[in-house]
């Protein structure tokens, strides 16, 4: 695992509760907001299971700690997206909270149901970007969620020991977390 320069983290007093919200104007229309919420809730919960940080969705975008939106091409942060595949998403280090996904991708909730060869699993990318929001940089461990690449039609959502070690070094361990729970994995590769 690796960190951003200066090892930034969310520094508020315990219990740490980070709020997140979705942009009203920058979403995708072929996935319902209800389903999007479910996916992100699952992605946030994976991290919350291993560190003493919880995440709560709120309505008000501007006041949320983590602000999530889908954007095309140049969207004003100096890091334009590039159309289909290429760059899928990016997020900023603590305590910035910006979390941007490329609206040009074919985002998928269930790869079994989406036939596109360029479909990208939304939950996998969400889980990866939350790692950045928390302060993890890219890992050189291929199996880790924080590895920078993700093939189309691939699901990689389960945190690996490398991810857990990295984030727990920043925030400590969730008292309810057991490493043995990492052994059960439902990651799949080139599904479909």
């Amino acid at each position, binding site marked *: 695992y690796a960190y951003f320069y*200066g090892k930034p983290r969310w520094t508020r007093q315990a219990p740490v509760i980070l709020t997140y919200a979705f942009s009203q104007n920058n979403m995708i229309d072929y996935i319902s907001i209800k389903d999007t919420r479910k996916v992100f809730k699952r992605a946030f919960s994976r991290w919350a299971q291993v560190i003493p940080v919880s995440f709560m969705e709120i309505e008000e975008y501007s006041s949320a700690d983590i602000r999530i939106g889908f954007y095309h091409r140049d969207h004003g*942060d100096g890091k334009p997206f590039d159309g289909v595949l*290429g760059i899928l998403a990016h997020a900023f280090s603590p305590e910035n909270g910006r979390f941007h996904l490329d609206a040009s991708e074919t985002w998928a909730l269930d790869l079994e149901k989406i036939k596109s060869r360029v479909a990208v699993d939304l939950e996998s990318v969400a889980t990866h970007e939350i790692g950045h929001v928390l302060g993890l940089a890219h890992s050189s461990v291929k199996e880790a969620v924080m*590895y920078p690449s993700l*093939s189309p039609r691939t699901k990689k959502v389960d945190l690996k020991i490398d991810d857990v070690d990295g984030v727990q070094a920043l925030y400590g361990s969730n008292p309810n977390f057991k490493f043995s729970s990492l052994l059960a994995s439902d990651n799949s590769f080139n599904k479909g």
Partner: protein
Amino acid sequence: RIKPEPSSTVTTVDSYNATTWHDFTRFLDVGKGSQVSGMSELKKYFNRFGYLPIPDTNNFTDTFDTQFESVVLAYQTNLGLPETGKLDFDTISMIVLPRCGVSDTKTHDTRFQARKR
């Protein structure tokens, strides 16, 4: 060596043909000392992900020089690839994959480290 069936080859190529970095496959096995038109675009790729600073001239060249070899090596080290310093199959295959836009290194790209205002 057994060749893959033509139908499966066509399918694989087809799926990535129109994607952002597919064109980089033509640099497969290009080595140090070579000059290949368009290699500056590959250097921009490495610049974008934190491996290569913008040169003083403000333009990347198409030359595979010693500095670029060390960039390729750093990329391979960072991503757990065989460390050859060459644009080998494993390296090119990784380059063309979709990925996160956040820089891989701590040094050259600080824009994702903005402070909350």
